[in-house]
């Protein structure tokens, strides 16, 4: 009996894996402004073949519920890489963290303490993590995309 308890703990994550039918794929694109022969400007997404400071990046997350059951309480979290300044998100419902994921809220709800003790409103560049929390379950077979933008520091 003494050795059964640890075994049970080992089994628990394995069971979770068995139901792990949601897939998540991450990809990054570089946003470039191209000018055609007539001088008309348009933004195009390119694979990140060449990336230099100042480039705008689009981080895209594709999810799919490949299982037979709906997935509830779906929460996606993406840390912002150190060398990237967060530059906003397409989806209104996303929450951000400016303290490495300890607290979450809208950017406007945070302030940052200055060296002299005063506070300033949090800037996009203060963001360390972005998170999406789905209020409705992801149905079986359902797919979707999430994205946020960043600028190479």
């Amino acid at each position, binding site marked *: 009996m003494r050795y059964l308890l640890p075994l049970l703990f*080992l089994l628990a994550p394995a069971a979770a894996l068995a139901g792990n039918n949601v897939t998540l794929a991450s990809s990054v694109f570089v946003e470039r402004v191209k000018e055609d022969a007539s001088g008309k400007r348009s933004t195009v997404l390119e694979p990140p073949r060449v990336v230099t400071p100042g480039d705008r990046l689009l981080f895209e997350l594709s999810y799919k519920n490949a299982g037979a059951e709906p997935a509830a309480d779906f929460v996606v979290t993406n840390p912002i890489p150190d060398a990237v300044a967060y530059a906003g998100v397409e989806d209104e419902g996303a929450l951000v963290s400016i303290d490495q994921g300890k607290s979450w809220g809208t950017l406007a709800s945070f302030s940052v303490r200055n060296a002299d003790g005063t506070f300033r409103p949090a800037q996009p560049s203060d963001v360390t993590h972005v998170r999406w929390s789905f209020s409705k379950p992801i149905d079986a077979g359902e797919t979707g995309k999430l994205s946020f933008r960043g600028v*190479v520091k």
Partner: protein
Amino acid sequence: MPGPASALKGALLGAVTAGFAAPAFAAGTLAGTNITTVATATYDIPGSGAASVTSNSVTLRVDELLDVSVARTSPGDVITFPGATGQLLSFTISNAGNGSERLALAARDAIGGDQFDPSVNAIVLDSNGNGAYDAGVDTLYVAGSNDPQLAPDSSLAVFVLSSMPVASLNGQRGQIDLTAVAVTGSGAPGTSFAGQGQGGVNAVVGATGADGVASGFYAVANIALSFVKSATVADPFGGATSVPGGTITYTVTATVNGSGSLLNVRVADPIPAGSTYVPGSITLEGAALSDANDGDAGAFTGTGISVALGTLATGATRAITFKVQID
């Protein structure tokens, strides 16, 4: 076997420790830095409980941006005279890119639009980093041999030494252009050099075109008067020691460089503290002058000597001597 949930914690903790480690450079993230992104999702499946999934990890390597600039640091025109050599113009070259970069330098002296062409003698690198030209200390630049390597966001002072043509005239200006070019490559912004950046990343020409140029000017002044002052000491015992009672003979030599003539040249020299003027000791070109403010050129004013040299033409030299006794 670690549960998927611990993978999420690991990812977050990793970001915490790394978050404050990235140094901030005006030139941006250093070339070769990795940008890695990985997302995590958690969810609940009815009947199966909580689960999580981690996305694939995407890593980008930051490429090297080639940005170079040159600025003149000499405050304005360098005033010089015809035939002058070793005339100094100061510049600063800067690497505004995000990688260490070697810069090739060139100084052009044959430039249209100016009134004469200076002749560049040398480009010198401020190898001791003090921002000032030190003859014999700073390193002579040899193109292709010691092209300076500049760290990201760093600058180096560069000195251009030139000679002025003898035929240059009063009021004329001669231009020098100093150019610096990234050795890796330059050209239209966005031009890419695959694998040629720092550490094997791509190198990309930035907004500066990866080269820079700045102009400096030499202006030939009408005429320039220079002085050389020397002293010899005679002590009361027949030696040359500076002791009370000893006599110092000062020699002031005035030389005119440039073109044209100087009118109403007057040399004034105060008597040094701790010494007393020896009456009647002023000479001009070996001829004695009186101390009174009278018809001859010399005078003792009570605090110093004054000698009127009148009109001097280019090349003229006048030697003045006077004596003081050490108190």
